[in-house]
């Protein structure tokens, strides 16, 4: 399987982009602290010409956000949080879905009650579902503060739980199809135990589909993170900072982790005045989703090729 | 032998898969006289279906006709314009396919499927079209209520009858039946083949019957072409061919089919024959390097008329026979 994958150009392209993004982001702050905040730009006669946020033309390559922090550096540095969370949660969702469907192999497949129950998740978009679970988390943390690490873990658990029901349904559907195949029936005619059949025959058949589901889940979580950013729900929670000059002090939630959806959410008010602060991180979301889609299409070629063999 | 309705001359067809080029049909000559049933028999991969599909230009995209001609009413079908070919399809020559289950559009009612074919050719009012469609349904032995049913509500045999009704709606002079009964039960099979045969007799039409079942050939064919590896290896009228098959492949095919007879002797398979007889009339049978698994054949060969109206493929050079 893996050997075939490495021959797929699309898969390699997507895989390369994701890996290089991660690699740069992980190594970045250990080698380069990043440019200092630039709050004001001065004309040569010393008067202030512009106030942050600065457009990409003012400060290449991506300009700065409201606090004058360089967007380019922030995005590269934040990449690791966003991508790792997306890939990590996707992996958690898959593992738990596999365990659940294997544990309940008998009942889940033809248990229409469970399938219909999961139907209800159709009508609540994942963003609302996640928002509903995370807001109480933030409220609770205002009374007794939760550490950054613990907050991220709880959030990841929430993101995982949301995806499990529908994944279990698709999964038990696939297992059901495989179980009807002739070579499963012929193994049963040898008296093989269910566990043996799952390990030796169902798993190898479903492996390519596993990679496919993993990639699709990662894309879904990326989009979910972007949405949560806009709803000012930040990974790792937020702390309130006083903003503005002396006249009007407003408490604002400032994301701790610099991941992409945090950047978007933090300066969402400036969407009309400084759109690049939002559009450039969204562009990076696009790049990562596009590369994962490339990996998916590479995988799909292999699955269809194996089927034809 | 009446005047030929359709003549295929030295037809070559090949497939282009990525870089490799696979020849599917090599120099096939075939004549279909008026009012006769010509059967082409061969196993999967022998090129029999490809030959029939090239007549109506229904080859898949990856196939290309390299050379040869298909003469029909003094027109070369390979050179005919798209417009004219569309006219010929369905009214002069039409076709019935093997996989009845998937050959009917599931989203259309039977009545629509049949009248649709009529609209293209005849200027009939809606009412006339409906009565014509009902006549066709009765002709193929289906009751009127089938007119309003969906294909998914019909059995395999009924679907094949609808396909035949559609094919015969234009009263074609040649009906190509590509393994029409392979996916049907034996009790239904004879009814479908009788249906096609009656059409031939009533309309003095010709039938090109593509099959792999010698029983069907024996019951319905007037002339037989045996194809193997894209070439015709033996051809002749059905009585001589059954009485005196010559090419080892034909003999092997006939003998490898179990027949209901008292003798309990062991079935002979094709490979038993190929090694016993090597030549005929001082020439070696082609394709000589024959093996069931990889079907390898090369070296020039030709169809030789070993007895009146009985052709066998032999190698061109006449070097001494013997292994």
């Amino acid at each position, binding site marked *: 399987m893996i050997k075939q994958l490495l021959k797929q150009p699309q898969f390699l392209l997507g895989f390369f982009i994701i890996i290089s993004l991660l690699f740069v982001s992980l190594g970045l702050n250990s080698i380069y602290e990043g440019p200092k905040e630039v709050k004001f730009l001065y004309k040569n006669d010393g008067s202030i010409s512009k106030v942050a946020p600065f457009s990409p033309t003012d400060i290449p390559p991506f300009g700065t956000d409201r606090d004058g922090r360089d967007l380019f550096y922030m995005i590269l540095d934040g990449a690791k949080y966003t991508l790792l969370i997306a890939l990590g949660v996707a992996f958690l969702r898959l593992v738990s879905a596999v365990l659940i469907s294997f544990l309940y192999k008998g009942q889940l497949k033809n248990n229409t009650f469970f399938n219909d129950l999961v139907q209800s998740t159709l009508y609540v978009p994942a963003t609302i579902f996640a928002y509903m679970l995370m807001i109480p988390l933030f409220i609770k943390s205002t009374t007794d503060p939760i550490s950054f690490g613990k907050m991220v873990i709880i959030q990841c658990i929430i993101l995982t739980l949301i995806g499990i029901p529908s994944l279990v349904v698709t999964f038990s559907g696939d297992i059901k199809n495989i179980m009807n*195949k*002739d*070579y499963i*029936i*012929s*193994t*049963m*005619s*040898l*008296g*093989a135990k269910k566990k*043996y059949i799952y390990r*030796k*025959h169902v798993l*190898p*058949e479903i492996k390519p589909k596993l990679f496919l589901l993993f990639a699709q889940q990662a894309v879904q979580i990326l989009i979910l993170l972007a949405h949560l950013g806009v709803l000012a729900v930040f990974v790792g929670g937020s702390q309130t900072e006083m903003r503005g000059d002396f006249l009007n002090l407003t408490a604002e939630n400032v994301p701790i982790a610099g991941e992409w959806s945090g950047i978007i959410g933090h300066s969402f008010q400036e969407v009309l005045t400084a759109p690049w602060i939002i559009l450039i991180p969204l562009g990076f979301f696009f790049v990562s989703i596009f590369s994962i889609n490339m990996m998916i299409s590479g995988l799909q070629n292999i699955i269809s090729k*194996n089927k034809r*063999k | 032998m009446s005047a030929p309705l359709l003549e295929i001359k030295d037809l070559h067809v090949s497939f282009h898969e990525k870089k490799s080029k696979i020849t599917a049909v090599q120099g096939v000559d075939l004549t279909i006289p008026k009012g006769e049933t010509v059967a082409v028999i061969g*196993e*999967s991969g022998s090129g029999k279906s490809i030959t029939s599909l090239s007549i109506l230009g229904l080859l898949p995209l990856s196939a290309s006709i390299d050379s040869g001609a298909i003469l029909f009413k003094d027109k070369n079908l390979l050179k005919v314009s798209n417009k004219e070919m569309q006219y010929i399809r369905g009214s002069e020559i039409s076709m019935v396919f093997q996989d009845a289950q998937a050959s009917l559009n599931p989203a259309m009612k039977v009545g629509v499927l049949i009248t649709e074919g009529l609209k293209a050719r005849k200027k009939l009012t809606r009412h006339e079209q409906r009565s014509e469609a009902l006549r066709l349904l009765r002709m193929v032995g289906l009751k009127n209520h089938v007119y309003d049913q969906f294909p998914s509500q019909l059995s*395999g045999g009924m679907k094949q009858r609808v396909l035949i009704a559609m094919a015969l709606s234009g009263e074609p002079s040649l009906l190509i039946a590509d393994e029409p009964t392979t996916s049907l*039960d*034996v*009790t239904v*099979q*004879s*009814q479908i083949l*009788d249906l096609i*045969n009656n059409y031939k007799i009533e309309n003095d039409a010709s039938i090109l019957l593509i099959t*792999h*079942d*010698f*029983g*069907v050939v*024996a*019951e319905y*064919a007037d002339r037989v072409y045996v194809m193997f590896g894209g070439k015709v290896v033996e051809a002749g009228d*059905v*009585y001589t061919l*059954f009485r005196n098959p010559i090419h080892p492949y034909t003999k*092997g*095919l*006939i*003998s*490898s*089919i*179990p*027949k*209901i007879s*008292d003798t309990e002797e*062991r*079935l*002979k*398979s*094709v*490979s038993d024959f190929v090694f016993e007889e090597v030549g005929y009339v001082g020439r070696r049978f082609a394709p000589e390097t024959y093996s*069931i*698994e990889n079907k390898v054949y090369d070296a020039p060969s030709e169809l030789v008329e070993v007895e009146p109206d009985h052709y066998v493929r032999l190698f061109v050079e006449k070097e001494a026979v013997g292994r």
Partner: protein
Amino acid sequence: MSSIIQLHNLSKYFSVGGELHKAVDGITLDIQKGETLGIVGESGSGKTTLGRTLMRLYKPDQGQIFFEGKEITHLPEDKIRPLRKEFQMVFQNPSDSLSPHYNVGEILEEPLLIQDLLTPSERTNKAYEMLEKVGLPKTSYHKRLHEFSGGQRQRIGIARALVLNPKLLIADEPVSALDVSVQAQVLNLLKDLQKEMNLTCVFISHDLNVVHYMSDRVAVLYLGHLLEVAPKKELYTNPIHPYTKSLLSSIPIHDPELRNHSRKQIVLPEKSINPPHLVDVGNGHLVAADVINITTFDTQKEKQDISIG
């Protein structure tokens, strides 16, 4: 001759789109040791379901199954496991009934592994021995399924079914997916192996010619009911049930001189509500009672009057 398998009005029902489809309905049958019983029937006659229910691949809904005198109808899975090696099946489509994920060696050794017989090295020798028995080169051991033609794959299927030295071999349409020239070789192979390993065979097919070549006794199935059972010669020369007659008359005869286009209308009997009761009309010929008028029936006299349709 003692019987190896006895069935007492065995039934198997499937629920298709809400209503009950009686695939196999009330079949009583005896299979003698060493004989080949042909089961002939058209599509939808339930012949495949009968084959699989008889092997306890499907759970029977009614009736009993006796294997060598012992009832195995409702034997729990772990009790029947050791018995499974006594009856094995050859499937219709070799490409579906053998796993594409393992090489031929593993496929042939799997039955021994599941039944946990022989040591690993003995298993490999047994695999090579089986390959040789079915006429495949030793090199096929390491090859995968897609490197073989249809006929060779069916030989692997046969080798796998016989690697456990079963007493009963059930062949479910073993040659209908193969080309005519290859068919003859596989049929001859089955006949030779049956003699060599003194197997009892159940040969399921829709092709009356193939059934005639392979069987000693033939049972005719129609829509889940057993209509007629008789020794081969008796059934083919002296069919009593109208359905059997129409089946036999619709077989094309391989001789152009004997064309009889004036064939009688095909008789497809109504599906009777309850399974027919079989009556022995002499020399092992059983036929559904409702077809013959029992009162006036006298074995000898009746035979002269019934001639081929």
